[in-house]
């Protein structure tokens, strides 16, 4: 994994493809790796404006609609 929580994650920890954060990303938004589909959650530090990605919660048995 390149980077860890609290630091910018620039490459996918699953497949190492570069990750991009949408310009209009909002706190808590789920973004996916375009290559392998791994999910990341956008974390925004309100004070510094720093945007980082951390691996999203894994799908649980009770998830869905």
């Amino acid at each position, binding site marked *: 994994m390149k980077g860890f929580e609290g630091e910018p994650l620039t490459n996918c920890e699953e497949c190492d493809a570069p990750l991009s954060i949408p310009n209009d990303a909002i706190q*808590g938004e789920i973004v996916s790796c375009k290559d392998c589909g791994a999910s990341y959650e956008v974390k925004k530090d309100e004070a510094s404006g720093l945007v980082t990605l951390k691996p999203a919660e894994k799908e649980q048995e009770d998830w869905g609609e």
Partner: protein
Amino acid sequence: MIRWEEKAIAQAAEKRGVKATLVDLKEMEISLTGAGANPKVAEKIVLQRCVSHYRNLYSTAALEAAGHTVVNSLRTAWNSSDKLLCTLALKRAGVPTPETHVAFTEEGAMRALGELGYPAVLKPAVGSWGRLAALLKDEDFARAIIEDREYMHPSYQVYYLQEYVKRPPRDIRTFVIGDRTVAAIYRTSAGDWRTNTARGGKAEPCKVTKEIDDISVKAAKAVEGRFVGVDLMESKDGLVCHEVNNTTEFKNSVPATGIDIPGLAVDYLASLDRR
């Protein structure tokens, strides 16, 4: 977490000048015994969008107790996110629904299947995205699947068994907001008997006929739903409703229908706030 749906709702609210705050349940705790509304949720109206069944149910209960109007309500969540309770609610309201039995043991399940006939469908009472739903083609197959369930969490030993409705290789998902069916799609499956778009089912536009609107609104009312997704099948005897979804997804339905479901949802929520 913010999926396409939640972001679309937030953007629709911003566009309309409706104040909306996104609240992440992971970041909050709610007092069950304190007085008054929870300070972390400033707005009176709460649109519940949590993807987790249990977090959804219990946070709705806590927020309602704190004085919020939650869409959908605890009663709706309870009676729709559990398929067994949903079947009972649909039946009570006179909404056509597939023949369904419940059993609590392997032998009970086999007897129920004897009455339903094969093929039949086994679903977890609480479960989503078609997960662990099984098409039981014959008695041997059913016995094998049910034997597996006997080694799983006890919740999977509540055998919710449903007739397999003969239908075109598709079902219909409708979206009810307030007392109106605002959009509908056909969900066609690709090599899977399940049509869930989460499983690769394809969304195609479906005209909201009077028949579709009537049964959808009636099903929504059966669970007191204010913003729900209703699943219908085209049986030889007409439409039947097999499920109502209280935290409906519409990522694939907006482009398929061209209907601004998030915008309509925000308009409806804003109208509640004015009442």
